[in-house]
């Protein structure tokens, strides 16, 4: 098993021009690794739909890779997204599923089916051509550059230990730069950044 930092640190180091969409338990941890204008927190937003939003970004920005840091609980809320990403395939879409088997934000209650649910199998069954599973940090670090350079859609399942992230909010009290503004301001700013060639 890995920690979230084992997953996010190497990703932040390898990241270049990718848009990164976070949600739930990855929002604040990613904010400690990155303050890019191409980061977007699906926080104070629709429950379980961060991957759909990221997929929309990928469809609109075909020359730029879009990485979604989804959770297992969020993924289970919208499994249809796995089919959307492959029909037709969206090659610049990279879907991370951070599987800690719990609803971390609400106190680590177990998600249905945990730990049996095999997200890699679900992604393959939906037609993802590139699917990877990691539960060990060194193997993940070694494979990540090639994963980010290969055509997708790509699904990366990372098995992590549960964290202890409290509920999300937005405002000046939040440490992460991308949580300081309202969701509307953040959405409009990312659109402007991309329009300017971000």
């Amino acid at each position: 098993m890995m920690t979230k930092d084992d997953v996010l640190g190497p990703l932040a180091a390898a990241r270049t021009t990718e848009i990164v969409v976070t949600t739930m338990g990855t929002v604040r941890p990613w904010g400690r690794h990155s303050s890019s204008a191409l980061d977007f927190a699906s926080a104070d937003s629709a429950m379980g739909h961060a991957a759909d939003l990221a997929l929309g970004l990928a469809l609109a920005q075909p020359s730029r890779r879009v990485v979604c840091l989804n959770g297992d609980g969020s993924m289970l809320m919208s499994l249809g997204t796995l089919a959307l990403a492959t029909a037709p395939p969206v090659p610049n879409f990279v879907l991370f599923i951070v599987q800690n088997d719990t609803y971390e934000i609400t106190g680590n209650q177990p998600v249905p089916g945990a730990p049996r649910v095999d997200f890699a199998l679900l992604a393959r069954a939906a037609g993802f051509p590139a699917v990877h599973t990691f539960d060990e940090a060194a193997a993940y670090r070694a494979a990540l550059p090639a994963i980010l350079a290969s055509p997708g859609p790509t699904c990366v399942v990372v098995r992590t230990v549960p964290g202890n992230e409290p509920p999300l909010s937005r405002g000046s009290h939040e440490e992460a730069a991308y949580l300081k503004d309202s969701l509307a301001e953040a959405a409009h700013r990312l659109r402007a950044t991309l329009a300017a060639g971000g």
Partner: protein
Amino acid sequence: MRAALFLRELEAAGVTDVVGLPDNSSAALFARLQHGGGRIRLHTVTREGEAFALAAGLWMGGARPMVLIQNTGLLESGDSLRGTLMRMRVPVVCVVTYRGYAKMKRVLGGPPAAIDPALLSRNDLDSVALVTEPTLAAWGLACGRLDSEADLPKLGEAFARSEEQAQPLGLLLTCDMVADA
């Protein structure tokens, strides 16, 4: 309402993507988009909540999407509409086909002023029609109606107003779309 005319209005409004789920009222437009929709891309979703989030992402990425779903699916997708298009102030037009409208108009003359729970189980009414407009009002999505081809210019107007206000807007489609004769 001829699907070809509807599509022409979308093209004139600069729509780049249609995101939604077909029903019998919109099937002709989906077929047209699927088999030669011109510049407009079609994204068929598995649940309506996906449509609002996908449309929000498309818009953030620089596209001009439109959402096309049925009122039954709209009821399923409330948190997604609230948490994406509304919360993000995304200027997207949502066309919602109005299942049960004709029956409601015939039996009650139009949407009831208030919903008596007894209405919801009446066999001569489709309960989804009864709750559609009150739900949209409760969720804060301003809506107009498309009753016939004569209303098609409302599409372009809705896109312009939506941009101006930086808010999503709804249009309730009360008639069926048909393939070209």
